[in-house]
């Protein structure tokens, strides 16, 4: 999954990574790609982890984890930070998901009746970036497929997703159906848990 996402990133591009699975991407991006990682709490130029010596309580990412930055990094307030997103200045945004559908709608913030955590920045992050990638396991722990014709959970954004990357492949939501861009090695259509009528 991580390699598939990294392959979608142009050199020198800017990237916002949601909390959870997408943070794995940060740890594997080769530095020669010169990606500028944005974290919506107000930093551009995130670069790996600090040492015990360099760690700073005032330098964290949106997941509240300690980080370090590279030369050329900048800090700004939250309205400017979300302005980068909403204004279309960030190239790619990678979010985790609980459900994603053929229309490109995403649900990743709330399960009715379960503990509420809040949407944080997710509802803003799905609008504006030139490419919105949802990165998620294809099936839930209970075995339910997370790619649906229409999401059943409360939405984070409606018709916003451009690409879906799961452990089984890469998909594009086309409106009424999913297009299969790529299947992981050894995976067949039949294993996707998707009715044939939802596949282009």
């Amino acid at each position, binding site marked *: 999954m991580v390699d598939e996402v990294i392959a979608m990133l142009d050199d020198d591009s800017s990237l916002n990574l949601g909390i959870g699975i997408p943070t794995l991407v940060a740890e594997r991006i080769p530095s020669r790609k010169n990606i500028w990682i944005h974290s919506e709490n107000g930093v551009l130029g995130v670069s790996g982890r600090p040492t015990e010596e360099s760690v700073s*309580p005032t330098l964290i990412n949106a997941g509240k984890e300690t980080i370090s930055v590279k030369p050329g990094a900048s800090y700004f307030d939250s309205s400017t930070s979300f302005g980068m997103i*909403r204004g279309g200045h960030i190239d790619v945004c990678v979010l985790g998901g609980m459900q994603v559908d053929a229309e490109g709608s995403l649900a990743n913030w709330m399960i009715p009746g379960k503990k509420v955590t809040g949407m944080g920045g997710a509802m*803003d992050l799905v609008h504006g970036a030139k490419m919105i990638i949802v990165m998620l396991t294809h099936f839930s722990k209970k075995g339910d497929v997370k790619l649906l014709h229409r999401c059943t959970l409360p939405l984070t954004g409606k018709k916003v997703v451009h690409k879906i990357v799961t452990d089984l492949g890469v998909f594009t939501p086309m409106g009424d159906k999913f297009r299969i861009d790529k299947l992981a090695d050894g995976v067949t259509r039949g294993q996707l848990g998707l009715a044939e009528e939802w596949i282009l």
Partner: protein
Amino acid sequence: MKSKVYENAAAALFDLQDDISLMSGGFGLCGVPENSIKEIRRQGIKGIHAISNNIGNSGRGLAWLLKERQISAATCSYVGGNPDLEEQMLAGEIDVTLVPQGTFSERIRAAGVGVRGFYTPAGYGTLVAEGKEERHFDVPCIFELPLSADFAIIKAEKGDSFGNLWFKETARNFSPLMAMAGKVTVVEVEELVELGDIQPENVHVAGVFVQRIYQGKDYENAIEIPKFAEK
């Protein structure tokens, strides 16, 4: 000449009352006005409407007030990692309004700069849009109103006697916006500096937005999730 500089948190927060709205800067535990929050705990005022991204985390920050049942309403974007808030939310003891974080920051800025409302795509087609005016521009949007507060408490790395502020690293977050949106903005600083010590071009918040300032002390500056490079 009337000074904006106060001796400490107790002196600067002399006129708080029950049922005020209170903005508090910080993201998680980063950039939290610890001295002001602890002083509000000491005063024991009740019925606070807290406006802050996280309303505390890991038992710290505004969670100090949650534990004492001083907060009756909260406007925020993320409550994860804050069991005190979740518990009181589920028990119906606290009225929580969740706002998408970018909308949250833009609404606070709007209040600060006198913009009376704006359209944003964030939240369109979701529960957040319920009851809100929708309008189609290049994309469908919803209408959002400014968000202000009776008091804003924030923390800065450096500040001078006029209230000019400078923030370190990602401790800036919502604080400059809240400084503008608070009717009374009370700032605590790691270091109180002389007028002119912050280079005029590098002032993050101009003093005109700040009403009171004091030298903070005994900062915990807790790290919520320490992560380190592999050796």
